[in-house]
């Protein structure tokens, strides 16, 4: 009975705190998390396809570059990359501004935290996406590429009509995994001050002293985000491979 009472009390405090404005803040946090993740995924897709192309190239130097990119950005702690882009960006921007004389010698130009964070997470996500794209390219039937060549298609036409549609279809499951990884990596951006879900939960926990409540809520919201993306990617997979579905 006592336990039930304390539980009810907990729930009512939780409701009061969330209704007092923290709930809306957390919703904004979700919005920012999704924004960070989406922009990072787009940056990662561009970088990832370039790096995948480099890794598949027959030129040794390009292959080495692509290889190094994926090794470095999958082997370093995410936190280190984020700090590197955020604080390193500040260092570079400050250096440039000081040398052009647009600020005083003691002033500092801060790296915009959203930009720094999104670049860092995007580059990490790009390393994982490169592997996904490379794998799906290698899964394309060789005969199809040869057939396209035999038709006299130009490289661009081959890419647009044969390679890209198939890579996209085969890459969807892998991209789903990278998306989940990127959502989780985006929580690390809180260290640079982007008001995404993690930082909002942090602020709420510090100022109300209800850390258990807010971190639990944040955890649940992350779970909701990651579990909602699973059926969406499954649907995308069904859509992109609709010409390959077989009746059971």
């Amino acid at each position, binding site marked *: 009975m006592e336990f039930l009472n304390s539980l009810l009390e907990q729930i009512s405090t939780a409701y009061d705190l969330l209704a007092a404005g923290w709930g809306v803040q957390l919703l904004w946090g979700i919005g920012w998390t999704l924004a960070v993740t989406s922009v990072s995924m787009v940056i990662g897709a561009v970088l990832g396809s370039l790096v995948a192309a480099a890794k598949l190239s027959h030129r040794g130097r390009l292959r080495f570059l692509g290889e190094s990119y994926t*090794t*470095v950005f999958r*082997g*370093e*702690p*995410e*936190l*280190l990359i984020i*700090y*590197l882009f955020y*604080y*390193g960006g*500040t*260092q*570079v921007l400050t250096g440039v501004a000081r040398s052009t004389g647009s600020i005083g010698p003691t002033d500092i130009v801060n790296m915009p935290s959203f930009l720094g964070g999104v670049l860092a997470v995007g580059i990490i996500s790009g390393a994982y996406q490169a592997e996904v794209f490379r794998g799906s390219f290698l899964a394309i039937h060789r005969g199809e590429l040869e057939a396209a060549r035999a038709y006299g298609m130009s490289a661009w036409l081959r890419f647009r009509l044969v390679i890209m549609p198939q890579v996209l279809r085969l890459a969807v499951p892998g991209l789903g995994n990278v998306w*989940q990884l990127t*959502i*989780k*990596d985006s*929580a*690390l951006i*809180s*260290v640079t001050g982007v008001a995404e879900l*993690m930082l909002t*939960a*942090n602020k709420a*926990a510090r100022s109300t002293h*209800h*850390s*258990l409540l807010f*971190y*639990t809520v*944040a*955890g649940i919201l*992350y*779970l909701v985000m*990651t*579990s909602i993306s699973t059926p969406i990617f499954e649907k995308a997979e069904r859509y992109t491979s609709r010409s390959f579905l077989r009746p059971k």
Partner: protein
Amino acid sequence: MDYDFYLSTMWSVLKALPLTLEIWFFGIAFGLVIATGLTWLRASGYRSGEYFTRAYVFVFRGSPLLVQLYLIYFGLSQFDFVRHSPILWPILRDPMYCTIVAMALNTAAYESEIFRGALRAVPVGQIEAAKAFGMSAFTRFRIVTLPIALRLALPAYSTEIILMTKATALASVVTIMEMMGTAQKIQHDTFRPIEVLTCAGVIYLLLNLSIARLFAWVEYVLSPHLRPAPDQSQQIKPVPEVL
């Protein structure tokens, strides 16, 4: 180029390597124990065991490690019984232990899935053959299922171990001065983040590359049956004329 600065930074960060390795080792060791328990629970065939493992894996794989770490370090201390417990409180008030607990719980979720897949990938024929030999369930597990499953789990397990090396950097957000924390401090003192973080990055990369090498070697040693047979014709070398 300021080589002295690079060298001194490298040295200071390297001095924090033992602490990083300590977090890494205990996180992995406890994680392995929990993962073994989870895999056993999942494979035991009890409905409730299966539901529990599924829920566990869903929660720990679906949320960021940072949230789990904060929940354990800041969140759990809100419970009175945690603060008054003579066992839990010494563990949960120490950021070091909290990081290890968070990492162990997190990696256990991933590892239990790896082990489950490996167990399921053991060829049925091998198990049937063992049964036909009249082996008891325990013997069968010990000398047939387990060795094959461990070999199959190795590649995915090595990836998970590398993810854990990366995860140790999170200890720096709860005030532990491991490699990342040390690099952070030097960076704040000198305001040369690019140089400092590059030094730390090189060390992390070398660490991860050596771990990957080590696992590749173990994999090589454990799979003599998958290697191509040595080429007989090339093994007989011509006798050198001058000895």
